[in-house]
């Protein structure tokens, strides 16, 4: 993996697409592995078809963790998924922006078609499952605390810190995040 990781250009993308999949517990077709992607414990990582892993992103399943990426998931430049002892799941069609950090000591699920803007952070402190409901949009630099469940199709404003559960279709802003209205 070391030599292939830095192979430049179309050739590098082709070689990694061809040869990386065998390292993983499961890996779909047409996965794009950017340059300098860091992968730890690939045997505990499942990757769906058509996933895009941008340059310099990190998939770290630790020694006892697991990572699952659904179909068509996009992981932005420099983002880190760290499953220390837990399970990081990013479901089908979700888009994780650049420079995000997702840490799971238990279960962390990013739902289907979720949109995480750049610099989002989840699970860095404390313990407890985190769930971001399908179709939600978390703005730039949102921080989601441990144990939080965000309902489906919710919107969290940029720079908010979510410390409590949010209902489905809620729009929440601030630190700590408070619901200001619901989508309709």
């Amino acid at each position, binding site marked *: 993996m070391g030599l292939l990781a*830095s192979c*430049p*250009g*179309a*050739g590098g*993308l082709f070689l990694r697409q061809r040869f990386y999949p065998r390292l993983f517990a499961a890996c*779909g077709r*047409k996965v*794009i592995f950017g*340059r*300098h992607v860091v992968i730890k414990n690939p045997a505990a990582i499942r990757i769906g*078809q*058509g996933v*895009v892993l941008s*340059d*310099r992103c990190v998939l770290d399943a630790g020694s006892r963790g697991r990572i699952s990426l*659904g*179909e*068509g998931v*996009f992981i932005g*430049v*420099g983002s880190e998924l760290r499953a220390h002892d837990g399970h990081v799941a990013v479901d*089908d*069609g*979700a*888009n994780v922006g*650049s*420079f995000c950090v997702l840490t799971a000591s238990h279960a962390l699920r990013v739902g*289907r*078609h*979720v*949109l995480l*803007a*750049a*610099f989002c952070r989840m699970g860095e402190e404390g313990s407890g499952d985190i769930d971001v409901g*399908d*179709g*939600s*949009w978390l703005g*730039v*630099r949102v921080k989601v605390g441990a144990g939080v469940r965000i309902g489906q*199709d919710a*919107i969290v404003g*940029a*720079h*908010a810190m979510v410390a409590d559960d949010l209902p489905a*279709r809620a729009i929440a802003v*601030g*630190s700590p995040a408070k619901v200001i209205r619901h*989508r*309709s």
Partner: protein
Amino acid sequence: MGHVETGGIQKELVGSGQGALGKYRTVVVGRAGMGAFLFFEIVTGLLGALPGGVGAVLRRVAYRPLFRSMGPEVRISRNVVFRRPGAIALAAGVTLRDGVVLDAKAESSEIHVGADAELGAGTILSCNGERMDIGEGVSVGASCRLGCLKGLEVGRGTRLGDCVCISGAGHAYDRLDVPIILQSLTCKGKTTIGQNVRVGDEATVLDGVTIGDGAVVAPRSLVNRDVPPGARVQGVPAEPAADAAG
């Protein structure tokens, strides 16, 4: 396995249409011919990761034909990524540190980096439409993300800290039956940051905002409306600082 509708970036990269190589070629050199594409691949492939002064000098010489224009004394560090360099202009003395990404994504995109400007390691300039103009002597910190859909201008002498985000666009969310990621992008207009502005680490500037000359944005602030010249703002959303002189 069923088909999953994907939005945004995924659609561009993985959607059906051109073959994989054709899509890659469009992303990295745009409409340029096969000769230009091969030159791009060979030159950046061989020289992109070369370390030290030797690498920088070789890149300065060999990369020049790729760009719309490149002035003298441009310093390109290792693993700098260019997409559609024919739409990118680098003025004299520009410094691009390790891993910087300059992506002139859309056909209408242009990126202009002014004389002696410096972009910190890992910083991403992603222009999804119109022109991104980084002024003379501007200093942008590390791991920043500057986006634009309707133009971005950063005035002369302005300094952006580390991990700053200029978002450039938002997302429509009026429909409830379609996930937000599949709805259109929104943009209130050009983002304009004046001259000699200071934007602190981890601050965010939303689309359509104008920040006047000499203003100061405190670290970790969220700027969602215009900031007058000379003002000091802080917080989420950014408000005039309590100790502002006025």
